[in-house]
């Protein structure tokens, strides 16, 4: 290929010298304002570099004369949002749980705040939809170990369950009947069968099972297995099993006991956040 610059006859414009199969590329000059536009963007770029953070340095970057920082902007937005909420926040702080529940504006604010706090602090155990898991209660249902009223939920969040660092935490200890040799293996088996029959009439049960239950379990779980919220003793006559409702799981519960721990949040979250959490959890559908 030979590069020959020549003047194109038709257009009168010089060619670039590139030629492909007899087709030449015209070297048509660009309009000059186009050049000015480019100079404009360069000037803009220089001004921008002076005014805003721009040049990366070894361990930092230039700050720019305007002192702009996206971090500061976020902080400002957060501060603005907090300021905008401050009226409602102080109203919520002063109000009782029942007052918040009765006021649509406060209720929706508390639910939104509670939802956000739940996503940060509670989902690790209770799940992102509060649907729970084995050993971690589902908060959507109507079964409550320690009570499902607003005040009960609030108390549980505030002081936790079996959380030793909190003096007001609620504790209940179920004996490990098998491990501590209070009952023999056959006796545990009999009690388990009786416990299952409380919620399922078709299940097989024995007289010994009934007697052992009455002697060892009914003081906390009630004679019909209705449970006792004062003691955090779960109802055994319903369809909800925190640790599984099959025979083996129930046997294991009786043999080794169960003692889930919920942390007290009074030390880590402010009062308003705990209030909002209580409202949120109560409004999940099972609140009493």
């Amino acid at each position, binding site marked *: 290929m*030979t*590069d*020959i*610059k020549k*003047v194109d006859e038709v257009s009168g414009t*010089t060619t670039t010298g590139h030629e492909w199969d007899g087709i030449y590329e015209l*070297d048509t*000059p*660009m*309009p*000059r*304002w*186009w*050049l000015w536009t480019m100079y404009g963007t360069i000037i803009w770029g220089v001004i921008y570099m002076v005014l805003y953070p721009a040049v990366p340095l070894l361990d930092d970057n230039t700050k720019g004369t305007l002192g702009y920082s996206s971090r500061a902007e976020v902080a400002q937005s957060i501060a603005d949002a907090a300021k905008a909420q401050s009226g409602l926040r102080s109203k919520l702080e002063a109000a009782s749980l029942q007052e918040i529940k009765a006021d649509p504006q406060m209720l929706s604010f508390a639910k939104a705040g509670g939802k956000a706090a739940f996503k940060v602090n509670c989902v690790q155990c209770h*799940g*992102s*939809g509060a*649907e729970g898991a084995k050993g971690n209660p*589902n908060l*959507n*249902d*109507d*079964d409550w170990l320690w009570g499902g009223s607003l005040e009960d939920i609030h108390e549980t969040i505030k002081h936790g369950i079996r959380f030793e660092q909190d003096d007001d935490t609620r504790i209940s200890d179920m004996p490990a009947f098998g491990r501590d040799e209070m009952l023999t293996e056959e006796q545990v088996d009999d009690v388990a069968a009786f416990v299952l029959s409380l919620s399922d009439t078709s299940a097989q049960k024995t007289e010994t099972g009934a007697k052992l239950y009455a002697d060892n379990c009914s003081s906390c779980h009630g004679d019909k297995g209705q449970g006792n919220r004062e003691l955090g003793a779960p*109802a055994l006559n*319903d*369809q*909800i099993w925190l640790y599984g409702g099959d025979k083996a799981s129930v046997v294991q519960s009786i043999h080794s006991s169960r003692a889930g721990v919920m942390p007290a949040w009074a030390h880590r979250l402010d009062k308003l956040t705990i209030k909002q959490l209580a409202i949120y959890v109560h*409004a999940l*559908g*099972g609140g009493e």
Partner: protein
Amino acid sequence: MNIKSSIERFDVQAVNRDGSQKLFQPPKKIYPKRVEGLFRQLKWLIMTVTLAVYYLTPWLRWDRGDYAPDQAVLVDLANRRFYFFFIEIWPQEFFFVAGLLIMAGIGLFLLTSVWGRVWCGYACPQTVWVDLFLVVERFFEGDRNQRIKLDTAPWSFDKIQKKLSKHIVWLLIALATGGAWIFYFADAPTLARDFLSFQAPWVAYSTVFILTSTTYVLGGFMREQVCTYMCPWPRIQAAMLDEKSLVVTYNDFRGEPRTAHRKQALKDGQPIGDCIDCNKCVAVCPMGIDIRDGQQMECITCALCIDACDSVMDKIGKPRGLVSYATLEEYDKAKAGTPVENHVPILFRPRTLLYSAIWCLIGLSMVLVLATRSRLDVNVLHDRNPLAVQLKDGSVRNGYTVKILNMEPKPHKALFTMKGFENAKMRIENLGSQTFTSGQEIELELAPDQLRVLKIYVTVPAQFLPKSDLDFQFEAKIPQTNDSHVTDTRFHLKKR
């Protein structure tokens, strides 16, 4: 090996040999001359109508009752509503706007395939505003020759005064243009008052500033450069034109050989064409091109050269139409001696019929959808996490967020029902602890032009649990208007 063959010779020359190579070229200023004629009249008319539509539309009122704004055309971004006379659309009905844009696109294709670049020549905002700016320029600086003289003259009080007045009026027009735009997005009289008293939101001022600048720069300075270098349409439209599309044509078989010295040529016995080479067609061209060079990308087919040439032909007593609107086909026929007078046949050919058919199809389907659309809607969002909740007594509960949309700017009483779900109980959280069964109607107040959100729990007792997940419906109806809407949803048995 001798010396001669060991030295390589290069076939190269210095790039600046001819001394004229320019990387960047200054635009040549164009001084379009004023011209009178049929197409100029048409352009005045279209300019007046389009400018009037643009500036005045936001000020038209349209009564929609107490619950909606009374501005005829309003894009209410804050409340996410779009009002166009008797039509109100919600964001989810944006397909109407999309449909209109598609129709505009296909309409443009259709116009282009039939009449060439009429959009560019007559209706494009760039053309209209440049025309308007030229009117101002002529008013202060005179016509073509006076403007050229003024530009080459040294600076004087008179020149400064003329230039300054022109730019002030240009800026005022630009300001009015940018200003009119914002009125489409808020109540015009209120915004105008706020704007003038510096109470309007900053976005209004910045929008006006940007549009004022672009109008001033594009209309006053960039002009034909916008069409040639910035706009994609001149490049695309080549694909829309064919030998049956109208273009501005110089009938060279009649005009050539052109001469400005007709008497001398006649005396010499040389052949002469009708073109007297007066260059008036070039002088009036807003793009600064010579139509006698043939079809060019720069030509916006404004037909001002036709007006110019016709006026000259009238003067020298020759028939009009040396420069005329003609298709390539007509040009060929005319050249062969069988001129075509009638443009009608070009309307009917596969391409235009296809464009028209698509255009009508979209238009008709939109009209149909618009005429039959319901102003009541029910959206159901099933709780996803968890899908289902097992309760103490063995019953299963599902949660739903139901949104009832009253898209009319009037309050309504609606009847809400759960349908097709025997033995299930529905509780509406917003209405307290009362439960409702399938088919039971619940009266709800719907606020005008708003949606009402209901949190609903549906519970099925253990003994009635279906064997598998089950479909049922939520229905809302407004007895007063006979409007109703049913939405299907599902009841799940397992939490995931």
